[in-house]
């Protein structure tokens, strides 16, 4: 296994350009949560030309709806949800500066193309390892759409949050490569 690359958000074009499918990355800094309902609202605002509650330039969105935090903990279990449901919204968000997405599962061709065009990457976190991943989240604060409950947008402060690059800016796809390598 290759050594993990430590990255600090927000991400620049240069940061993402050097990432290759299969790279292990430890994310540090601020990332934002967002899943189905929040994506729909953000997308609608962009389409209407209205300002967003969060500036997405250089940012990373984590597709997660965390479990409630127990007293004394910043967040409950917080693993990735299936990314494919965000596919219809993602190219538009990359167009306005989104640099990274964290989730699990395959992305549509249009999304992979948008990553090449707008210089962004797709990371996978281990699905179902929500208790473990929550350990890398040091602070969580709802910053928009509180009414959505677990689907609200939260600002997360993360330390060495472990992800792996699935789709890079060159159009490579770790899921396809991995399957080719081990299929019999």
């Amino acid at each position, binding site marked *: *296994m290759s050594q993990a690359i430590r990255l600090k958000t927000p991400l620049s074009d240069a940061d993402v350009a050097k990432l290759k499918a299969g790279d292990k990355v430890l994310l540090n800094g601020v990332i934002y949560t967002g899943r*189905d*309902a929040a994506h729909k609202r953000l997308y609608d605002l962009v389409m209407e030309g209205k300002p967003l509650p969060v500036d997405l330039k250089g940012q990373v969105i984590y597709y*997660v*709806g*965390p*479990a*409630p*935090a*127990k007293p004394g*903990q910043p967040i*409950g*279990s*917080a*693993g990735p*949800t*299936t990314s*494919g449901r965000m596919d219809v919204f993602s190219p538009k968000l990359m167009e306005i500066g989104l640099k990274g997405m964290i989730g*699990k*599962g*395959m992305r549509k061709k249009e999304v992979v193309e948008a990553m090449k065009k707008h210089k962004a990457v797709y990371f*996978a976190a*281990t*699905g*179902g*390892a*929500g*208790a*473990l991943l*929550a*350990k890398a989240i040091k602070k969580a604060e709802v910053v928009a759409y509180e009414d*959505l*409950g*677990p*689907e609200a947008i939260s600002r997360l402060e993360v330390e060495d949050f472990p992800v*792996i690059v699935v789709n890079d800016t060159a159009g490579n796809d*770790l*899921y396809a*490569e*991995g*399957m*080719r*390598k*081990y*299929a*019999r």
Partner: protein
Amino acid sequence: MREINTRQIIEVVKKLCIEANLYLEEDVLAAFEKGEKMEESPVGKEVFQQLKENARLAREEKVAMCQDTGLAVVFVELGQDVHIVGGDFNAAINEGVRQGYQEGYLRKSACHCFSRANTKDNTPAVIHLEMVPGDKMKITLAPKGGGSENMSTVNMLSPSDGLEGLKNRVVEWVKQAGSNPCPPVVVGVGVGGTFEQTALIAKKALLRPLGQKNPDPQLAALEEELLTRINNLGIGPQGLGGRITALAVHVEMVPCHIASFPLAVNINCHAHRHKEAVI
């Protein structure tokens, strides 16, 4: 006639909701150990290690293993000599779910289909009631996450498709689900019956402990063959490539109409959550 009070039902359902979401079952942990040994991909091995560490953390800190604590699917085997007293049976199950998801710090994932407004207490539960001989009540809680449930299907095959057609359809289905349902998965296959029954037996197949084969030798052989073919797909843990795409395949079959050949595939994520209690 034995009386069971709804108060007991509420307590048991509440406890099962919490335990099923916090504690990985021994059969699953054993499958992780075996999978880690058999896995050839270094990343795949690492995924198994993460899942084991995740289960340990969840158990020690009493937090949910996964943030998606599911819709509460509740199977009840009700002894015909039981008389339920103290209130509405369905309301008691839902009250148990309400209390369990609140007290266990579990995510409430139930919402209105159109407005998507959260019901805020994870009800209504999905309740399957079956009457059996005896004076006991067995309750099985199987919290079901959206990611794996979305990768499920019912196919009304034609009898002419035959057993080979059925096998191909199952393998193709798991292939196209790929990394989405959190592999290594458990594949529940229902064959026969009607449209709704085939789906229900596919889900029931998931309640069987991992590693326990179908007692029918023909179906046990089918489970084995499907598992080999699925693991030869190369999807691997988390879809990152590897030998272990599925931990097990469980098949259940009932007779069907002479014109039909129904098939359902219900996929479970690696946590394979299920917990039962008898009152």
